[in-house]
């Protein structure tokens, strides 16, 4: 009830905006330094053995890229954006998920995090403000049910409040595996539990959607809960998981190719890339390292792409990709940034994703050669989708030039993006320096 009231306060207050940005900046600094200084030790904070928050290297890594990505995406467009106060709840919920270290804590924060958009949808449908939202609510309710069932099974086995790393392998029976599979795949937007993503776009601001993806609830549950004992799980389970995540990437890419809405297409491109994270994690240790790097790349580059798209949409009336808009003539710097961010994500040499593809494909082919070919197809299609979006937006010539203002980015607005790009290309050129740190 309290949450519902708070959500209704949509802030346009400048001090609120700067407070949120300040908090994000502070947390980015803290988590990144903790992550870099952490040598593999885990600090656990517990409350009456129920709630368990962990500052292990993986959680710190996730928290760091969560805060840095949002900050990089929000800072350059701060003057134009109205950050609503409810965004703080999204940040809080996401950080709770990222740092949770047992099933009960995960359940509480996951429910809290998903309830914020759910309540907004309920209110929107009631007042007839929202277009859609039904699928989001049904899937959220379904996954909530699965998570509750998993928690009941865990309570019966006495592992609900146990740290993820201490859960014994015999707990992972078929019902547990199936329930976890649904939760992980639904949280990650993977086929066939993906339809809620369509509902979010257009109804939520980009940074809120981004915060939902950046919480990486599915990845966290997979890495902390399933991964330690995955070698003892049936092979068929792993093959189904791998096939679905590869298929999901292909599906999202093709969906993006057919879609004309700018925000939807960008989101589909992002989700298609995200699906490949789970592929890498499931394949083998080499591919898993690639997947961790991939998570960093798409979090930073993907959020920057979203942020650039929101900037474009603010100054132009571009909503649909049903024609060429030729924005590069009006926004040359922005076009170059957009293009380079895309390159860092689709596996262009010297960019970070090139390393990722090399590791993931090699690792995957070691285990399942034919699934590896599917992954290669997904990667190639992703590249096509990106170029399609880029050319429709920035190249060609628009039929409505009067609707486009010349408001290219200033040097100060470009700085955060350029820093991220430098990082992405540094990863692409000196990958070993970064991969050294991605061990836990």
């Amino acid at each position, binding site marked *: 009830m309290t949450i519902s009231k708070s959500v209704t306060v949509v802030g346009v207050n400048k001090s609120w905006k700067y407070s949120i940005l300040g908090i994000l900046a502070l947390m980015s600094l803290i988590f990144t330094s903790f992550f870099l200084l952490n040598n593999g030790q885990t600090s656990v904070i517990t409350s009456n053995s129920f709630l368990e928050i962990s500052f292990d290297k993986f959680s710190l890594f996730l928290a760091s890229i969560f805060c840095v990505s949002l900050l990089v995406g929000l800072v350059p467009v701060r003057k134009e954006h109205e950050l609503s106060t409810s965004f703080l709840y999204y940040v809080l919920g996401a950080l709770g998920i990222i740092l949770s270290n047992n099933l009960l804590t995960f359940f509480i924060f996951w429910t809290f995090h998903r309830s914020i958009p759910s309540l907004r949808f309920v209110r929107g*449908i009631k007042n007839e403000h929202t277009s859609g939202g039904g*699928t989001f609510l049904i899937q959220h309710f379904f996954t909530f049910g699965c998570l509750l069932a998993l928690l009941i099974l865990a309570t019966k086995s006495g592992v609900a409040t146990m740290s993820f790393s201490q859960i014994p392998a015999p707990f992972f029976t078929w019902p547990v595996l199936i329930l976890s599979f649904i939760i992980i795949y639904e949280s990650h937007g993977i086929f066939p539990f993906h*339809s809620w993503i369509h509902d979010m776009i257009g109804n939520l601001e980009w940074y809120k959607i981004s915060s939902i993806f950046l919480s990486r609830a599915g990845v966290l549950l997979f890495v902390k809960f399933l991964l330690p004992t995955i070698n003892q799980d049936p092979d068929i389970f792993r093959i189904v998981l791998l096939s679905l995540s590869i298929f999901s990437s292909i599906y999202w890419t093709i969906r993006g190719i057919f879609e004309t809405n700018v925000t939807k297409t960008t989101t589909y491109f992002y989700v298609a890339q995200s699906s490949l994270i789970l592929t890498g994690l499931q394949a083998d240790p080499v591919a898993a390292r690639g997947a961790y790097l991939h998570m960093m790349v798409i979090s930073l580059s993907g959020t920057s792409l979203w942020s650039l798209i929101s900037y474009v949409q603010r100054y132009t009336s571009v909503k649909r990709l049903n024609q060429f808009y030729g924005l590069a*003539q009006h926004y040359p710097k922005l076009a170059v940034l957009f293009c380079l961010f895309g*390159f860092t994500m689709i596996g262009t*040499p010297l960019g970070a994703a090139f390393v990722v593809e090399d590791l993931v494909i090699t690792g995957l082919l070691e285990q399942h050669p034919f699934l590896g070919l599917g992954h290669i*197809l997904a990667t*190639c299609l992703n590249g096509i989708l990106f170029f399609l979006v880029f050319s429709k937006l920035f190249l060609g010539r628009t039929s409505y030039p009067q609707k486009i203002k010349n408001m290219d980015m200033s040097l100060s607005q470009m700085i955060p993006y350029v820093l991220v790009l430098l990082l992405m290309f540094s990863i692409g050129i000196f990958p070993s320096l970064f991969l050294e740190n991605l061990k836990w």
Partner: protein
Amino acid sequence: MIIEIFYLSLLFIPLCWMVILALCFFAQLDLPERFLTESVKWISVAMSLISLTLSALVILNGSKALYFDYPAWLIVGNYTFKLRYVVDLLGSTYALLTSLLVGIIYRFSSNYLHKEEGYFRFIFLLTTLTFGLMTVSFSRSLDLLFAGWELVGTTSILLIGYFYNQVQPIRHSLKALVSYRLCDMGILAAAAWSHHYMHSTDFTIIPELIEHAHAGALSLLFIGFFIIWASLAKSGQLPFCSWLPAAMEGPTPSSAIFYGALSIHLGPFLLLRFYDYFSHFPILLWVVGFVGGASAIYASAVGRTRSDAKTLLAYATISQVGIIWVEIALGFTQFALFHIVAHASLRTWQFLRSSSLIQDFFENPTVLQDKKIHRNLSFEKLASRMVRRKIFIHALHGFHLDYFTNKILDLFLAPFKFYIEIEKKWMSWNNKFVKLIIKK
């Protein structure tokens, strides 16, 4: 030692120049055209001299291949990505061809693109192409070769869309992109496949490893098919022919360097690199010969129905490259290399002269008479008039190649389209259902 310094210079000169240009762009330094022209002039002179000396040294060394290994670029678990290079007759010849032709193109562009808005962009992309081609020429492993291969593809696509404020070049660059990405899958798959079955992507030792590999002949044969698949798009062979004439939308110097000279011959270059491997599998040589022969006949027939100079040249190029494929299939590898050099040089000249064709025609009217003589001696006369007319009509439509490829694409996309429709209906049903519950 000298050879090592020379070939490393050929790699580092374009790389450093590329980095300098990128930094200048981000620092918003507006480099004057004169400075750019002078710089690339001296760079191309230096590169030409270095590559000429390198080729001479290789020949003096008895055309023996020299291998260079450097510390691993990437180490993750058991996987290492080593920087392996080879300097041999094939690589040094291609590097020499690259240096000389790129130099000519730089010189030609200084007049042709004088005071053009995108001159800086053109120089940057041409430098990236040079770096990509040098990487392909000297790389000894498939992973490294793929990096150079991708750079060539990316620059090619960006240069087709050089006149980015026109719609048609952008459409054509997207067409080229689809062909490139689909075929680039082949090289990536070949790299991963050979890594999986032979634990190496070093193509100089792959033929030796074949006898010791613990895999069936079919698995090893796949590598060859992937290589052929990868070569198809770059060299514009069947069924990936139609993008090449469309790619002529770019500026004439880029058409010359890409589709007359260097990029188009990368396919045969790759086949020559893998010739030792192909010789273990005669069926692969049959496939190479068949594809090359069919493409040569197809392009020759279609080219005769076209009337504009650049399109005619494009089909003539496909036809010649098809013949080079046949030469490789027949085992005339030295002759194929000579053919590549001769053909690339002639086509560059023809493409560069194509823009002043009308002037040439008025200066030398005997051109038309030569054409008449050629027509009278044509083999076409052997067929009956009716057969010729039918062939002409089909050739005019490019033997409906685009129609068939679109049909195949539609077949692939049909299940996705069907699912998208179902999902839309399902989401609308969800919305109605949730609305009903909430309203109640």
